[in-house]
């Protein structure tokens, strides 16, 4: 019993630290929160304009509300790539804390993920507002949107935990991951519909890419105004939870050696 109380207390201490570090990273990212948000929205916006101009009459021809369709995909992809890229290096960029302070180091990674999550939620809300302005009717389905955010948060946290851990041992992982992210933009249905790749290998790759499902979920909720399919959403929740658990275990098993590798 006493032990349980002790664990709860120490967890509270780390929650406080998580909160404090997340605020710090949020502040550090950009000097002002509002401007920072504008800048981070600018990137998907430029991509949106380019992709919209290029694919509107090609892959986008059969897709309703193609602009919003693109925007949702881009916002979710951009958040995934930016957040994992930033969190990957956090143990290294804050190496004084990693190497010389006594606390569970996943706190560092999760605080970086959280700092970006704040921005992500804002961006998604902006997506919804734009969708409403452009004539898509308001619906109850939007209330399920936070569920998609939780899934995205789980996914980003898992990938970040794995990458940040590996980055301690291999500094060139940054380049490798950058190349992967370039590839990812094409194997995620951002500017085309899932059916575009046909029934072959491409289809399997899309199916195995969790980002595909997350983006399609948001589109279902915002554009189609339908609730999420229960079975596949539960399956995805279970999968991301398992992934998070495994990446956490991996991280914890390497944690004792971080200090000597930095």
């Amino acid at each position, binding site marked *: 019993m006493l032990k349980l109380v002790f664990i709860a207390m120490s967890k509270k201490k780390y929650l406080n630290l998580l909160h*404090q570090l997340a605020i710090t990273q949020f502040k*550090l990212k950009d000097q002002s929160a509002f401007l920072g948000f504008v800048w981070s929205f600018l990137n998907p916006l430029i991509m949106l304009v380019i992709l919209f101009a290029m694919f509107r009459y090609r892959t986008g021809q059969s897709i309703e509300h193609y602009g919003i369709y693109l925007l949702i995909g881009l916002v979710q992809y951009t958040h995934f790539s930016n957040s994992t890229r930033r969190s990957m290096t956090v143990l290294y960029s804050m190496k*004084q804390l990693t190497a*010389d*302070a006594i*606390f569970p180091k996943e706190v560092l990674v999760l605080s970086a993920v959280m700092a970006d999550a704040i921005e992500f939620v804002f961006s998604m809300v902006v997506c919804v507002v734009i969708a409403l302005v452009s004539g898509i009717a308001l619906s109850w389905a939007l209330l399920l949107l936070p569920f998609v955010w939780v899934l995205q948060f789980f996914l980003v946290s898992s990938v970040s935990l794995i990458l940040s851990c590996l980055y301690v041992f*291999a500094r060139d*992982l940054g380049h490798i991951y950058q190349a992967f992210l370039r590839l990812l933009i094409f194997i995620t249905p951002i500017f085309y519909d899932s059916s575009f790749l046909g029934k072959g290998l491409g289809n399997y790759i899309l199916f195995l890419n969790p980002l595909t499902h997350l983006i399609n979920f948001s589109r279902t909720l915002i554009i189609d105004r339908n609730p999420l399919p229960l079975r596949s959403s539960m399956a995805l929740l279970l999968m991301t939870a398992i992934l998070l658990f495994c990446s956490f275990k991996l991280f914890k098993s390497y944690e004792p050696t971080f200090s000597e590798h930095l």
Partner: protein
Amino acid sequence: MSQRSASICNTIWAIKAIGVERKFARRRPHDTAFRALTHLFNGHNDSNAFFALKDINFKVAKGEKVAIVGDNGAGKTTLLKVVAGLYRPTAGEIRTTGEMILLRGAEIGMVDELSAAENLFLYSSIYGVDREKVKVNFQEIFEWAELEAFTGARLATLSSGMRARLAFSALRHFDAEIFLLDEAFSTVDMHFQRKYEKFFEEQKSSDKTFLIATHDMDFARTFCTKTLWLNKGRQMAFDATDEVLKDYMASNT
């Protein structure tokens, strides 16, 4: 001797080191994915490893203040990090009871781009103090550090001495039971030196345990009842401070 061992039986040990050894491989700079993979499959090449610590045995009772002395490269910092759990010993065992903090230099955990006040909250949270407690002591911390005028200033605009003062002032409110200090606070003027001394003087009778790596022999003499002397990773002595320091000084002449 019998009297002494009787008293030891009732002691609560804060830190116990039993045959602690720590080896390091001489690593090359620039870790790459390729090298990490070859290590994973071929195992580590142990041939060029060296001992940073070998056969370290000591016990620190709860509330005891212990100094670690030794020349540069003797293994003081490595030992502190092993005790802190940041390095795993390659052999032997470390046991600690109680919440620990490790302070290596005053500025670890401080961020140049944030204000002094924001830094205080961040810094304290790293060492386990929650926001509410910092809020309560906020005024007092800045007053003690004599930095009331700088709460809103960017940390980058503060001198290193001022930062050390802020860090030390915050440290007074850390409620860990074991303090591991590594030459932490040496960049301050005479006036603050007094204030520090006063703080350590007060701590002498507290039940907080201190393990302090230091080159300041006067400090070790006045504050620490026991001293651990390391030389090239070996334990030369662990005994009452006066005796150990006498030998240590003698070895250096």
